[in-house]
């Protein structure tokens, strides 16, 4: 794959000191006069935290917004499943938190692979998000005095996480959704449900609209606008088994990529260490159990290989509390990636537990003995109930079984400081972009980033790009750029129905996921990645020749929808392998076995890889070009992580 190490990417980070950049930038950007905003059409695709908050805010400003979701209602977006909380540098706990500390923790947590200026801006606006959400009626947890409560989360040394029981994502999404529905009522936002983006349309290099398919009637429709915003989430479902929702996919981002938007750092994927292991071969998705469980649970496996005794029959001296032994200082609370890799190692060595020998124990017997059943129930009752309803096992009596699973993707569409992609007029926000988390995301930061982008960043920066287009009408949907795109999508749909092979879309998706998990999963090596490239390519060919999609294109057809999404996952998976191959270092969620410290920890190579890798599409037949955006660290000094 061609490599272009000449920096071609202009991040457009403003000048000035770190603290002044965003203020200065807001002042120097072009503004659109309030009376002129209604002359601009803006398309927002996706109605999760990022999309709904952006559509609401743009509508309030007076832009003519069209919001699209492929769900039946905007409230179904997968943001709704986020459990833990949302970080903000409020320092309500008086424990030494600050914008700078949140910035620093995020840069360090990302293993020094994110842009300083973006991360600082994220920390700055984090406090506004809490104010905004509270004013919307989001029922955050409160103390008896009536003020907001905080907890520490994911190993942070300050309590900066705001939460609404274990359903913070749901409550924040309902807040953003209701704000957007208010704009729908006001006539500023036109809502399109059950409409899936299948192409991004450009004219003279500028984004001018999208093509969607109505999932009920099958009609392929062109929509034009002065700017297009993608808020379509991450690509974790390339692994088939993940904690993502069943319908989460990369299609919108990928189709934009094929139209010229560079795709950055696809190999940065995050594994969550505490998920319920798969119980059979036809498992459809994995369920996350909050990381907070590691505060009281002890992780262990039997010392013997292939030990089939029930947990309570394995004596204390035949158990391996491997995290406590290897990391005496942090024990069971080591960061996500370290906990995950260690679990994989012991399971790979043959110490796995459960019917499929694919998990490790998370044991609460010591905590129940120490604090009592009631104290543990007060802390984790709802999680224990959820575990029991899924597995049929009672975690008060038998240890939980857990195993890591894919949970979040840090990579995504490359954007500059204005959140604009390499296609002028096309923006990407939330998990869909690559911007703020570097190679690893901190807990409770996904909600923060989605809402920061949607409420407080994009509504400003989009005006800068629109101001130049004043007086120009949006490109007509009769223009050949639209009609050609519509025809191409109709042809693609017809193609899926005509293959008439022998295997279902899900079969290929599952097989693809297995390859990606085995070779581009928790730890990677050159041999495995090269194998991934060839095997994914071969499976892709089989998919194109042997998939069987039944039914017709003019009714609701769930297999047909999935065929297009899985096809895009195949292309993405190939790029992930190439990206992981080229990144000859370990950092955050990307662990290359060739690059580890003598203690087995991730070893970065800052001299050669302190950069973003952004890939350019060169057509279906050709390899993609790797571009580089150098990362400069002017305010923090990269250090090696250690948890011994």
């Amino acid at each position, binding site marked *: 794959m061609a490599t272009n190490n000449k920096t071609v990417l202009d991040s457009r980070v403003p000048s000035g000191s770190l603290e002044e950049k965003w203020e200065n930038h807001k002042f120097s950007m072009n503004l659109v006069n309030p009376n002129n905003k209604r002359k601009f059409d803006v398309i927002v695709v996706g109605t999760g935290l990022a999309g709904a908050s952006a559509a609401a805010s743009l509508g309030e400003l007076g832009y003519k917004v069209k919001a699209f979701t492929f769900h039946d209602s905007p409230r179904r977006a997968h943001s709704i499943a986020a459990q833990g909380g949302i970080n903000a540098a409020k320092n309500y706990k008086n424990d030494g938190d600050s914008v700078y500390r949140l910035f620093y923790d995020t840069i360090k947590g990302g293993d020094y692979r994110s842009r300083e200026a973006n991360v600082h801006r994220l920390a700055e606006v984090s406090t506004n998000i809490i104010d905004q959400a509270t004013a*919307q009626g989001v029922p*955050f947890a409160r103390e008896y005095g009536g003020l907001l409560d905080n907890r520490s989360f994911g190993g942070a040394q300050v309590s900066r996480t705001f939460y609404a029981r274990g359903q913070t994502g749901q*409550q924040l999404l309902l807040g953003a959704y209701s*704000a957007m529905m*208010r704009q729908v009522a006001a006539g500023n936002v036109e809502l399109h449900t059950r409409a899936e983006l299948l192409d991004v349309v450009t004219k003279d290099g500028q984004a001018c609209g999208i093509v969607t398919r109505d999932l009920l009637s099958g009609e392929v429709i062109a929509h034009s606008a002065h700017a297009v915003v993608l808020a379509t989430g991450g690509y974790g479902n390339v692994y088939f088994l993940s904690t993502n929702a069943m319908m989460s996919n990369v299609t919108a981002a990928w189709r934009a990529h094929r139209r010229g938007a560079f795709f950055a750092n696809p190999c940065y994927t995050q594994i969550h260490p505490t998920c319920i292991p798969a119980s059979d071969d036809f498992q459809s998705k994995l369920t996350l159990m909050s990381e907070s469980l590691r505060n009281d649970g002890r992780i262990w496996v039997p010392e013997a290989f292939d030990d089939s005794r029930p947990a309570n029959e394995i004596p204390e001296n035949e158990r391996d509390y491997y995290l406590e032994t290897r990391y005496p200082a942090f024990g069971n609370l080591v960061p996500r990636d370290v906990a995950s890799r260690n679990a994989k190692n012991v399971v790979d060595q043959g110490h796995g537990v459960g019917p499929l020998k694919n998990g490790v124990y998370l044991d609460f017997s010591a905590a129940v003995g120490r604090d009592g059943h009631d104290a543990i129930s007060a802390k984790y009752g709802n999680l224990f109930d959820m575990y029991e309803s899924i597995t049929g096992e009672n975690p008060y009596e038998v240890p939980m079984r857990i195993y890591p699973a894919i949970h979040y993707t840090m990579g995504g569409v490359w954007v500059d400081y204005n959140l604009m992609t390499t296609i002028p007029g096309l923006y990407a926000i939330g998990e869909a972009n690559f911007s703020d988390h570097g190679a690893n995301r901190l807990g409770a930061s996904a909600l923060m980033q989605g809402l920061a982008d949607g409420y407080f960043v994009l509504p400003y920066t989009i005006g800068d790009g629109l101001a130049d287009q004043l007086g120009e009408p949006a490109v007509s949907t009769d223009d050949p750029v639209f009609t050609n795109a519509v025809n191409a999508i109709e042809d693609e749909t017809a193609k899926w129905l005509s293959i008439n092979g022998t295997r279902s879309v899900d079969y290929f998706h599952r097989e693809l996921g297995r390859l990606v998990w085995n070779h581009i999963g928790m730890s990677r090596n050159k041999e495995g990645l090269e194998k991934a490239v060839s095997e994914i390519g071969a499976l892709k060919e089989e998919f194109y020749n042997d998939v069987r999609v039944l039914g017709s294109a003019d009714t609701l057809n769930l297999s047909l929808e999935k065929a297009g999404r899985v096809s895009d996952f195949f292309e993405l998976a190939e790029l992930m392998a190439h990206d992981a191959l080229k990144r000859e270092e370990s950092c955050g969620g990307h662990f290359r076995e060739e690059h580890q410290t003598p203690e087995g920890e991730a070893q970065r190579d800052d001299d050669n890889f302190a950069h973003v890798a952004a890939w350019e599409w060169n057509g279906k037949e050709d390899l993609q070009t790797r571009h580089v955006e150098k990362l400069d660290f002017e305010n923090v000094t990269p250090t090696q992580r250690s948890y011994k």
Partner: protein
Amino acid sequence: MSEVITVNLKIWRQESPEKSGYFEEYTQKITTEASFLEMIDLLNEDLNSQGLEPVAIESDCREGICGTCGVMINGQAHGPRKATTTCQLHMREFSDGDEIVIEPFRAISFPVIRDLVVDRSPFDQIIESGGYISVNTGAASDANLTPVPKEAADQAFDAAACIGCGACVAACPNSAAQLFTSAKLAHMASLPQGQPERWKRTEMMVGTMEEFFGSCTNHGECHEACPKEINLDFIAFMNRDYMKAKVKNRALSGQR
């Protein structure tokens, strides 16, 4: 522990909103470890390989929070297990040889789109008619300027836990949407932030609800079917607020 059982399925098939539907019978072998939806996944895999169109059924998060899934299972919305969405239901609730009748949620306002998929968009229209607190982005004051009694915040959360799945409507003999609507109203009316628009919101949302849905006759089936166990008291709360809103014009007389 897991065992393999065989279940006899009677599933509603309907090609499109206009066509009439019918029950189709299938037999499926399945381990009791599997979830209900994974059992349908397997059935669909088999149908696909026989060249028969899979059963259309919706689900997304499969964690019981997004509200996408929901079918009638043996006449009960979301099936036999209390406080459980269809996606969280597991086959260990069933025994070898059981007959399982699977139908879409039934309500005039939830027309069938295909097989087990229905259109629940009237819920969005109820929200659109007033289910929000009007605050523009950027206009909020510091969050801790307005203390909220913990009990009020907790009650607001209890109401806001609604996932909008529509089981309440499907379970109601009148297809009423009182539980859904009252949950949203109670969420906002419990909080100081929700007070300025309280009466108008109640009138608007109840009005929109009545355009689409039947009337409440206090059966309580909605609460029984609700996967989040939303409290029936919220309906009383809504009725009281609605009456207060209608009795006098509160625009000039403050909020009480």
